């Protein structure tokens, strides 16, 4: 594992988020993370991939400052995390939209909590609502949107606060398969345009290989980073061609071989 970490640090991009020897034991004695060390390069999308129970969501919430590690620490741009911060934004698995608020208010809610004036925050939110492809839906309420569209609002809200690091907790797991594929393609565009650091939790191998610059493969019992994979797939071909690309399929297969022992 330390070899994997080193190979990242030798690579050019500086480190945005650094997780150092983090252990998390939940009240009641369940050990979710055990001495986890991992680094996330700036401006890239890194997936945390692994079977359920490997602590990937726990790790993400510790990075977000929503959970406190039992020991160890996390730094973002070299500054230790003590709680949620302005430089991090979270995208929730169940969207966490407010059903009583319009798309506009939901997307601008991070800014509203920061005390940004209404006209200003609406202008910013409008830009990101457009960027995630929800043009014209500003006045709708979440229950009028499909699951995929709701998560786009969640993404717009995270982008609107202009955080450097976006933390995404299985953002597409509650979205149907067709919508998910479209969303993954759009996410690649957002990653390229925004130049932000994305940490992306998923349990879908295909999804991780498709969207990530690097994949941290987490394994349970004890939870650890078993490998960092950099799926070197071609990005200059169409999404459908990528999904048929032998390199893509080989990586998916390799990861599956590594994980299957934990599923069986």
């Amino acid at each position, binding site marked *: 594992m330390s070899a994997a970490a080193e190979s990242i640090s030798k690579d050019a991009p500086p480190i945005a988020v650094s997780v150092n020897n983090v252990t998390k034991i939940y009240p009641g004695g369940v050990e979710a993370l055990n001495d986890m060390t991992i680094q996330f390069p700036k401006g890239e999308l890194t997936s945390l991939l692994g079977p359920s129970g490997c602590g990937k969501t726990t790790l993400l919430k510790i990075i977000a400052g*929503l959970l406190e590690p039992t020991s160890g620490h996390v730094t973002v741009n070299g500054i230790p995390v003590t709680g949620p911060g302005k430089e991090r934004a979270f995208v*929730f698995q169940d969207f966490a939209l407010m059903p009583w608020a319009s798309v506009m208010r939901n997307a601008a809610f991070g800014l509203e909590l920061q005390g940004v004036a209404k006209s200003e925050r609406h202008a910013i939110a409008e830009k990101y609502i457009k960027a995630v492809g929800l043009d014209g839906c500003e006045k709708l309420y979440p229950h009028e949107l499909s699951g995929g569209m709701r998560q786009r609002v969640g993404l717009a809200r995270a982008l609107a606060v202009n955080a450097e690091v976006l933390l995404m907790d299985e953002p597409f797991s509650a979205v149907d398969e067709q919508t998910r594929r479209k969303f993954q393609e759009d996410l690649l565009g957002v990653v390229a345009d925004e130049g932000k650091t994305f940490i992306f939790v998923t349990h879908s191998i295909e999804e991780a290989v498709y969207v990530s610059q690097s994949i941290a493969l987490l394994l349970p019992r004890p939870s650890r980073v078993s490998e960092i994979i950099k799926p070197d797939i071609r990005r200059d071909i169409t999404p459908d061609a990528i999904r048929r690309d032998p390199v893509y399929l080989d990586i998916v297969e390799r990861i599956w071989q590594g994980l299957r022992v934990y599923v069986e």
Partner: protein
Amino acid sequence: MASFLIHPWVLRLISVVIAFSFWEYLGRIPISPAFPTFLQTMSALWGMIADGSMAAVYPATFQPLLIGLVISSVLGIACGVFMGLNAKAEWFGAPVFIVLQSAPLAALIPLLTFAYGIGLTSKILTVSIMAMPVIVLNAYTAVRHTPTSMLEMGRSYLGSQRQVILKIIIPAASPVIYAGLRLGAAMGFIGAILAELLITPTGIGDLITYNQSIAEYDKMYAAIFSIMVFAVIFIEILERTEYMFFRPDKRVTQ
């Protein structure tokens, strides 16, 4: 045609017509000489509205009712929200209100009269102890059940505790808080009538008792009917205010 028949307003009308027809039928059997028909009751009601006797008594009933409901709503929601947010307050408050909710409150009225006399205070207290437990317990449960991810969202986007309470917890809890308010209002109406029947006969309670004592049963039922109509209207208005102030999203589907 079929879609017309299942329209909510048509269904409501049908159910009302069925209930009143059944009432008319039972009155005509008659099941008891003390049970007037629906039409007799309505004509008595019309007579009492026309001669002003209805309008004359209502202020006396509404005064303790409205004061009691305002007190129990404000205090009840405040207590409930506080109990939902604070574990110590929950330990202290929840048992009191759970006991109050299941206690036979009519039996406590003589005690209230003994302590506070036969005036307005006792009647306001009767309304309040009837209405408050359900308001408190609903508000408390609602706050307790704010979705975890919504709270995490508030924290991760750096909401202060005040912002999280006002902008997330209370709106999220509002449907259940309002359900409690509606139940509480219904209990409050019962409390107001109970107070007038058991403490001193004033207002609509006086109209009920008096007409019963002189065997004018149609007028007695008309008085009971009128208070039920007021209760329904009041509760309906309450529901509208929820959509207006807290849940604009629900107006969309209405």
